[in-house]
């Protein structure tokens, strides 16, 4: 951290001189220096607890010897530490011995077998001859929820699960029950566990008392094959460990090792339980050709030759720019690169895009504007050391759950201040001492972001003169903030000015600041302006204050960043080199250009725009019109059902490459199993397709394609990872700082309430994202059906009670029926519907509407 630097202490561990930051507990200092100390209840992500009493060490400070528990005692200057002395071993062994009286020896069928701290400590302390009579508990295992099995006979009461649930996840679904000899772990009133199912408790449990029921095998996990790879759901980019046995992925675990990934061994439900998509009977297993409405299996050779011929014919008849491609935000960087290379290099077409770019091309400009303004942003691994975090319109536990974990860690260990701005009263429990909640009127994002800047300027919270001299158009921008007076903002946002002032003061202090922006801003009609306003706010503190500021663009899927970095956009080549102005840009309005006949061939690599794009009617019409449609995907989506040719793609667990997360960390994707059926990674498909066209790519393996990328896109030089990942850095930062004044006068106003009194908010459910998670059995079990949310007072007025079915109608003349629950999280006048269920097609309610969608709600008859 820039603001508070910790002093370091010189200490001696077993005679070796080392140094450790002030405040580090002895056990952590030992671990950092590879000195083993017995312990069972310590985890560096949690506050010291000292439950197991097996980590005693001897310390000498100023000649005075003491026996201390190393998990709670911090290091001190000049401290000499001795581990594993005869005396400490005697104490540590005695405590371990007590635990072993009760602990069952069912190791062969235990999920921690071989990776068990209790086994390791027993071995370390040579505790093989207990003095006491064995007295085992015989409690039945508890399987009252679909995910986590409680087998408490193995529990050693270390409290790691209880603490992880509270401190890391902020949920506290578990607690200790009873006391003394009969103490145990349990849920409220022993009811079935109903939580975020992040499984953090399974990871931290040292003994297999908590087990993942989605696992395909029991016991001997040390014999599973581990593959470290990157999760394929949201854009946070967690490193996960795919554990496989006999060629099948059995389960997904987190790796809590040092310097593994960006997630410190934290995962969410999707990341941990979403492995059901890998070995799945619903997968497409062969290339399919559409013969008069039904699909016939064909060979890869036939399929690829058909596509190659068709592409060549289309180039010849209608010119290269009549071919277009949509790259999925789930393709690897290498696949995305080859995808655009095929279109640009082999076909001569610049008509490639991805769905995020099609909807919001300003996301990429925003990224580049940040660099120009000198905001390169710190790696996301630094988030947990932040002084202040502004979470703007993001429901963290659903959108970036592991980001939430990092922030919570910061609130415990770095005194992070939390500023949460959201139209809903989102749930985020942490230990933040400063926790400012800005719950504003739905759609008032821009006013909130702009007012924060204006308060900083008006109250001179930063060095205004300095900014005026460094950033040329400062004055112009300040003038554009004129409408955001305290009174006007309060009227627009419903927020009292003192709340915003408090937030602005916290944000303006010299500090390491982080801004996390949610994808919901894209649904407001002011996405670009909101990003500009937030960038202005960051620029203000970057150039007028001390410390640092980091802001990341909203990215939804695992490689939403990378697919743009690789140039799958009509505006940019790989590495954000601009495309010549003269080039035709038909992909910018892809759907209409399909409908009006300008585009004759469309290749969709792994997307289902019929459901995921916000203009479902237009998508259907475009796909119906375009003369030839190729879709590659893992599952038979509704989009694939409209294709002329469908190619079976592999899942992330079957391919190699890299994903780039929303903070630009380039991380490895590694194959754990061979592809199911005849499916192939998109990488192989593209290589073979080029060959079928008679223009084979020179580089045909992942590593050489990575080398090619590094030469073509200089920002990717030296970032392709081994087992450590790095954030790519812009070529030049702070080149041309300027403020982006917003002119919203030409923007279409949000529709007035009229007959549609509610505004609709849709985003990803906590257990689902994209088109794959609905195929993961475990995720469907915990998130089986779509449930809308309504404020209890609104529900009461409409005569609706929780559990009722409601009918939602929008001006787009669309109706959906959905179950509803009441919660005060969703503000009055708002209706929240998660967008991940095909049977509740919320995008049809939107149907192309750029701004807030107004709906009316009635009880289903």
């Amino acid at each position: 951290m820039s603001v508070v630097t910790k002093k370091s202490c010189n200490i001696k561990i077993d005679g070796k001189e080392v140094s450790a930051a002030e405040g580090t507990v002895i056990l952590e200092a030992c671990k950092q220096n590879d000195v083993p100390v017995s312990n069972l209840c310590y985890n560096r992500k949690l506050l010291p607890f000292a439950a197991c009493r097996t980590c005693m060490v001897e310390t000498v400070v100023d000649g005075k010897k003491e026996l201390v528990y190393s998990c709670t005692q911090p290091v001190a200057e000049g401290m000499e530490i001795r581990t594993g002395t005869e005396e400490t071993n005697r104490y540590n062994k005695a405590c371990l011995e007590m635990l072993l009286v009760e602990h069952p020896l069912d190791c062969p069928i235990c999920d921690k077998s071989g990776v068990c701290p209790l086994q390791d400590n027993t071995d370390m302390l040579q505790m093989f001859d207990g003095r006491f009579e064995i007295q085992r508990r015989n409690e039945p295992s508890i399987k009252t929820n679909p995910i986590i099995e409680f087998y408490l006979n193995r529990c050693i009461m270390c409290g790691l699960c209880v603490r992880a649930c509270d401190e890391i996840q902020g949920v506290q679904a578990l607690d200790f029950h009873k006391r003394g000899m009969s103490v145990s772990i349990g849920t409220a009133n022993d009811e079935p566990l109903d939580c975020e199912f992040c499984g953090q408790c399974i990871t931290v449990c040292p003994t297999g008392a908590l087990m993942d029921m989605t696992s395909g095998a029991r016991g001997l996990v040390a014999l599973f094959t581990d593959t470290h790879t990157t999760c394929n759901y949201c854009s946070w980019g967690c490193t996960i460990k795919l554990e496989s046995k006999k060629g099948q992925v059995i389960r997904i675990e987190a790796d809590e090792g040092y310097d593994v990934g960006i997630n410190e061994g934290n995962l969410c439900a999707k990341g941990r339980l979403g492995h059901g998509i890998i070995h799945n009977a619903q997968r497409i297993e062969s290339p399919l050709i559409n013969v008069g409405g039904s699909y016939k299996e064909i060979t890869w050779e036939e399929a690829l030759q058909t596509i190659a011929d068709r592409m060549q014919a289309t180039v010849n008849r209608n010119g290269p720019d009549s071919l277009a491609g949509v790259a999925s935000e789930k393709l690897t960087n290498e696949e995305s690169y080859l995808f655009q290379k095929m279109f640009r290099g082999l076909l001569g077409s610049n008509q490639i895009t991805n769905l995020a770019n099609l909807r919001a091309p300003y996301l990429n400009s925003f990224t580049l504007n940040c660099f120009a303004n000198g905001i390169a942003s710190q790696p996301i691994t630094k988030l947990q050391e932040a002084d202040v975090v502004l979470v703007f319109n993001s429901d963290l536990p659903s959108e970036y759950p592991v980001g939430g974990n990092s922030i919570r860690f910061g609130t415990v260990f770095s005194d992070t201040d939390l500023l949460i701005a959201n139209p809903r009263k989102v749930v985020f429990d942490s230990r933040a001492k400063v926790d400012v909640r800005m719950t504003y009127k739905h759609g008032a994002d821009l006013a909130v972001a702009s007012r924060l800047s204006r308060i900083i300027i008006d109250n001179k919270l930063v060095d205004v003169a300095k900014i005026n001299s460094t950033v040329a158009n400062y004055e112009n921008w300040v003038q554009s903030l004129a409408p955001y007076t305290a009174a006007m903002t309060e009227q627009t946002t419903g927020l009292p000015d003192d709340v915003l002032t408090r937030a602005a003061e916290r944000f303006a202090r010299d500090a390491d600041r982080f801004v996390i922006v949610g994808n919901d801003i894209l649904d407001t009609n002011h996405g670009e302006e909101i990003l500009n306003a937030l960038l202005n706010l960051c620029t203000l503190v970057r150039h007028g204050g001390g410390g640092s500021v980091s802001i990341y663009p909203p990215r939804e899927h695992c490689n939403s960043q990378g697919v743009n970095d690789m140039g799958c956009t009509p505006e940019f080549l790989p590495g954000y080199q601009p495309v010549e102005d003269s080039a035709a840009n038909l992909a910018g309005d892809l759907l209409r250009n399909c409908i009006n006949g300008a585009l004759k061939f469309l290749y969709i690599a792994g997307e289902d725009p019929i459901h995921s794009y916000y203009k479902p009617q237009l998508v259907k019409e475009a796909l119906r019109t375009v003369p030839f449609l190729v879709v590659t995907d893992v599952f038979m989506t509704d989009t694939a059902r409209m294709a002329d040719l469908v190619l079976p793609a592999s899942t992330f667990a079957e391919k190699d490459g890299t994903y780039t997360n929303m903070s630009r960390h380039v991380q490895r994707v590694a194959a754990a199993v061979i592809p199911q059926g005849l499916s192939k990674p998109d990488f192989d498909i593209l290589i073979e397709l080029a060959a079928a066209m008679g223009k084979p790519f020179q580089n045909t393996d992942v590593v050489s394609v990575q080398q090619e990328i590094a030469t073509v896109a200089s920002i990717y030089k030296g970032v392709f990872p081994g087992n450590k990942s790095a954030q790519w850095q812009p070529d030049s930062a702070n080149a041309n700082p300027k403020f982006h004044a917003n002119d919203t006068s030409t923007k279409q106003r949000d529709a007035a309430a009229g007959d549609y009194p509610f505004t609709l908010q849709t985003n990803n459910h906590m257990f689902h994202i994209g088109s794959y998670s609905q195929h993961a059995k475990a995720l469907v079990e915990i998130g089986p059906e779509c449930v809308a949310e309504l404020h209890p007072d609104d529900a009461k007025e409409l005569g609706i009670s929780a559990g009722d079915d409601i009918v939602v109608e929008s001006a787009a003349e669309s109706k959906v029926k959905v179950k509803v629950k009441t919660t005060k999280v969703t503000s009055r006048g708002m209706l929240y519907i998660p967008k991940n269920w095909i049977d509740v097609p919320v995008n049809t309610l939107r149907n192309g509407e750029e701004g807030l969608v107004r709906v009316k709600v009635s009880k289903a008859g």
Partner: protein
Amino acid sequence: MATNDATIADQDVDEEIDLAPTEEIIKNLADNSRSLLIPTLQKIQNAYRYLPAPAMELLAEFFNITRAEIYGVISFYPVLLISEPGKYIIKLCYGTACFVKGAPIIGDKIHDRYHIRPGETDGAKLFTLQTASCLGNCGAAPMAIVGEDTYGNIDPEKTLDILGEYKIDDAEMLEEAAV
């Protein structure tokens, strides 16, 4: 081993609970600091004789803690009950002296007649059996407290005679007392 475990409440019984007393108790609290949780639980138990689940939901909301944490606290203290106890709580002393002088036999007798073990309530909701670590009157071992009445030097064989005096219907009990 014998403890004062409370029985798990019947999950499917959806009793109507009058939450007014709970609301009143919460309204009179100075603030929502965590240190007031245990006194509040005691007050609610005084009002209802136990801690009804809907009342605990109100408490969780008021103190801004999870239900898991509240039930963690409740289960720590045997005196706090999560289901309605019988009309009379039998506190059977299991201290060393009482134990040696026949407390387990008394426990067995109670089980034979009322089919309850420590922590349980009989079907008629007449008795809830609890054990006590020591009631502090070892000279009169074995001893027990039934409702408000203290019994010392109990002859284990006469256990049921003592308990037979207690009836679910007050009128019936007075009648018998008169006879």
